């Protein structure tokens, strides 16, 4: 039940981001300066952290969506629905840890100084 609630919450959140994201990308049709100015806000530490949240939400929605498809169409899906929830949780962690590292690398370096 909670996997279904989280599927809804992540879905609605991603939809609202998509709405804003098409609007900001449409600025390439206005001028390069306007686009670059707005995209600069995506590169700030706080928005950068929100991007990790966005990727985490999309990744959960995608993995749980595949799980829902398997429950619907795979004959053994309903029997393994709980096990599959554990599997997607582990896959989510395995992908998010290195993903978050690379996404936040630049922010860490600007906030705390370069390590290299």
């Amino acid at each position, binding site marked *: 039940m909670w996997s279904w609630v989280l599927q809804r919450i992540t879905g609605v959140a991603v939809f609202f981001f998509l709405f804003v994201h098409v609007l900001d*990308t449409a600025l*390439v049709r206005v001028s390069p300066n306007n686009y670059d100015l707005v995209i600069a806000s*995506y590169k700030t530490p706080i928005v950068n952290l929100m991007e990790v949240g966005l990727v985490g939400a999309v990744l959960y929605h995608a993995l749980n969506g*595949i799980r829902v498809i398997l429950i619907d169409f795979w004959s053994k899906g309903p029997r393994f629905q709980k096990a599959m929830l554990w599997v997607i949780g582990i896959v989510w962690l395995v992908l998010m840890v290195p993903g978050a590292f690379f996404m936040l690398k630049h922010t860490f370096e600007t906030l705390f100084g370069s390590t290299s």
Partner: protein
Amino acid sequence: MSMVDKPTPAPNLPAPRSARNARRSNFELYSWLFMRISGIVLVFLVLGHLVIMNILDGGVQRINFAFVAGRWSSPFWQIWDLLMLWLAMLHGGNGLRTVINDYAERPGTRFWLRTLLYVAVIFIVALGTLVIFTFDPNIA
């Protein structure tokens, strides 16, 4: 005993049939199927987009107008983005339609929320499509 052997037929009863309105549409079935088919395609399109834009080669820090111009000089990425835009907006729009239908109980609220949703989806799909097709790398 004789009553079991010879039941009295009731007069003028219509023939048995399934409880189904002849004019019922299959829209909800097709939208359910669409969510699954578009979902599988979007797993590749959106996760690929996120890995390229946010993780590879410096991630979001390297994105600017020149980066977009470089990508959209290739029909491959134009088609990728166009397909992603349409599928994601229809998938997300249909998802929000389901959420509105589940939680908005007053008929007036349902009507206006759905109208707002449909206007937003049509606007974003039209705007995004226009931008992809009319992109000009040499804009002033």
